[in-house]
C-alpha cells in the first residue's frame, strides 16, 4: 500500500457571493473541516499543493498561495507546488498523489480558493483584469471581444450544434440537473435557490451562442480542500480513504483557437491506461461544468459515448439524474453550486463514494467515480475508488 495514494479528508468553507470573510480565512476554514474529517492535525501535514498558486496580477482568481498556508498554519512542508502551468486544476491533486507515492510526503493539503465575487466588490484590493492592452495568449482573442472563455467554449459547442445536431433542449439538461442537485446540497444554498425549468432556460438571455446565461458558472467565494495521504499512513486516518486509482492530463497546444477538439478527448482515454477499471465500472461522474458544454466533451472523451453522441445521452436528463445510470454533478456542479474551479468535483466524488452525501446520496453503494477539470486545450482527470 506504500505506493498508493488516497484522499483521506475533504473540506469546504462557506460558499457564497461577495462573502465578507477574507479568502485566507476561508481557506483556513476549509483546512479545518478537512483535517477534522480525516482525523489529522496540522503537525501531521508535510506538503501543500494548489492550483494555480497565488495570482498576484489577478488576486480575485487566486488570492491564496501555498506559501501563505505554510506560513500561517506553521506547516513543516517537505514539498509544495502552486502553479498555473499544469494540465488543469485537478492536476494539483494528481501531483500530490505522486509526492506521497514517492515517499516525499505523508499527508498533503491540496486546495483551491476563489474570491472572484468578493474581489469584484473590492476592486481597490483585488484589481480587476484591465482590458485596454493585451499580451501573451489573450492577444489572439480579446482584440476581437472574445473576452471570456464563454466565447471560446461556445465555438466548440457550436460545432456540436452544426455537425451533430445538438439542440438547446439537450444542452439545457446540464444546468437543469445541476440546479436540482444543488437544492439538496447545503453548501450551495447561496448559489441556487430554485429549480431551473426548461422554460426558464429557453427564455434566458444568450451570452454567446449556443451558451445562454444558465450555461455559464457564476463567480463565487469559497475554498475547497482535499487531503491526500500515503498508503502506508492510513492507520493515522479515521475517515474512509478513497484511492486515487488513476490520473491523466493533457495539454496539446496552449492556444484555445488552434485545437479542433478540447483536451478532454486526449486526457479521457489516458485515464484508463493505468487501471483495470473501465467506464462500465463507474458509478458517478463529476465533470467540470464551468460552461455547460464541457461535461458533454468529457462523456465523449472518456468513452462513455462516441464522439458526437454526448448530447443525445443527456437528453431528457434521466440518465444523468441521481437515480439514473450515470449520475452527473450530484452536488450541483459549478453551474449549481458555484465556481469552485475544479476542486468541487473531487470533493463531491469522495463524498458520494463514502455514502456521506445525505439527501443527495446516489443509490447502489457507489465504489468508483471520475472527477474532471479543465476545458479547451487543457484537461486533467482523476479516477477515484473505494476499494
Amino acid at each position, binding site marked *: 500500500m506504500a505506493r498508493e495514494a488516497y484522499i483521506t479528508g475533504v473540506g469546504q468553507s462557506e460558499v457564497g457571493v461577495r462573502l465578507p470573510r477574507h479568502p485566507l480565512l476561508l481557506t483556513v476554514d476549509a483546512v479545518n473541516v478537512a483535517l477534522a474529517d480525516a482525523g489529522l492535525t496540522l503537525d501531521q501535514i508535510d506538503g501543500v499543493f494548489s492550483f494555480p498558486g497565488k495570482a498576484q496580477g489577478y488576486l480575485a482568481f487566486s488570492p491564496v498561495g501555498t506559501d501563505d498556508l505554510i506560513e500561517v498554519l506553521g506547516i513543516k512542508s517537505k514539498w509544495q507546488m502552486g502553479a498555473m502551468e499544469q494540465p488543469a486544476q485537478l492536476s494539483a491533486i494528481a501531483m500530490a498523489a505522486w509526492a506521497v507515492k514517492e515517499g516525499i510526503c505523508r499527508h498533503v493539503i491540496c486546495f483551491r480558493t476563489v474570491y472572484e465575487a468578493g474581489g469584484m466588490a473590492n476592486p481597490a484590493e483585488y484589481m480587476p483584469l484591465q482590458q485596454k492592452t493585451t499580451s501573451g495568449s489573450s492577444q489572439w482573442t480579446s*482584440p476581437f471581444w472574445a473576452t471570456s472563455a464563454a466565447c471560446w467554449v461556445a465555438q466548440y459547442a457550436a460545432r456540436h450544434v452544426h455537425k451533430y445536431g445538438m439542440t438547446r433542449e439537450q444542452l439545457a439538461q446540464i444546468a437543469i440537473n445541476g440546479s436540482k442537485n444543488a437544492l439538496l446540497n447545503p453548501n450551495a444554498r447561496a448559489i441556487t435557490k430554485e429549480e431551473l425549468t426548461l422554460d426558464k432556460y429557453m427564455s434566458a438571455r444568450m451570452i454567446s451562442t449556443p451558451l445562454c446565461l444558465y450555461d455559464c458558472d457564476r463567480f463565487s467565494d469559497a475554498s475547497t480542500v482535499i487531503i491526500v495521504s500515503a498508503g502506508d499512513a492510513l492507520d493515522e486516518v479515521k475517515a474512509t480513504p478513497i484511492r486515487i486509482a488513476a490520473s491523466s492530463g493533457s495539454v496539446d497546444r496552449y492556444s484555445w483557437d488552434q485545437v479542433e477538439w478540447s483536451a478532454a478527448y486526449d486526457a479521457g482515454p489516458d485515464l484508463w491506461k493505468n487501471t483495470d477499471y473501465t467506464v462500465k465500472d463507474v458509478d458517478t461522474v463529476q465533470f467540470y461544468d464551468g460552461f455547460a458544454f464541457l461535461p458533454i466533451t468529457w462523456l465523449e472523451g472518456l468513452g462513455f459515448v462516441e464522439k458526437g453522441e454526448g448530447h443525445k445521452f443527456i437528453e431528457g436528463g434521466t440518465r444523468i439524474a441521481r437515480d439514473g445510470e450515470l449520475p452527473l454533478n450530484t452536488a450541483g456542479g459549478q453551474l449549481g453550486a458555484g465556481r469552485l474551479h475544479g476542486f468541487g468535483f473531487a470533493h463531491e466524488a469522495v463524498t458520494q463514494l463514502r455514502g456521506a452525501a445525505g439527501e443527495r446520496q446516489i443509490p447502489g453503494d457507489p465504489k468508483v467515480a471520475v472527477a474532471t477539470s479543465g476545458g479547451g486545450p487543457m484537461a486533467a482527470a482523476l479516477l477515484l475508488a473505494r476499494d
Partner: protein
Amino acid sequence: MSSAPPPPSSPPARPVPKLDAENRAFWTGGAEGKLNITQCGDCGQFTHPPRILCRHCQSENVAPAAVAGTGVIDTMTVNHQPWAPGLEVPFVIARVALDGVPGVYLTTNVVNSPVDEVSFGDKVRVTFEQQGDIYYPLFEKAN
C-alpha cells in the same frame, strides 16, 4: 467615482496588443494590406501564434509571409454579451481556417453582414481595421 460613462455612440476601443519581436508583423502588416503569418524558410510550414522559431522543425529561419487573406469559417458564435461598456452586440466571433495556411486558425470577427447571414463554411476575406499602430484582421463574407 463621478466620471460619466462614455455615450453609447462611442464604441470602446479594441484591446491593444503589446507589440514585440514575435507579433509585430502580424499586428502591423495591415498597413501594407498584408496578412502576415510566420513561415519557416526551411520546412515551409507555418507557426501561429507567431514565434521566433518554427514549431514544426525548430528552425530559426522564420519570417512573416503575406498569405492570401481568404479563408473559411471553421466554427463561430454569435456573441450577445457586451464585454465592455458601450460594446455593440450582437456580433460574430469566428475561427477562420486560412486558405493556403494548413493548420492555422484565426479568432476574428466577421463584419459587414447581419449575424444571421453568417454561417459555418462561409468563404471570407480579410479586411483590416486600423486603431493606432494596430491593424486588426477582421473578415467579411467573400461573396
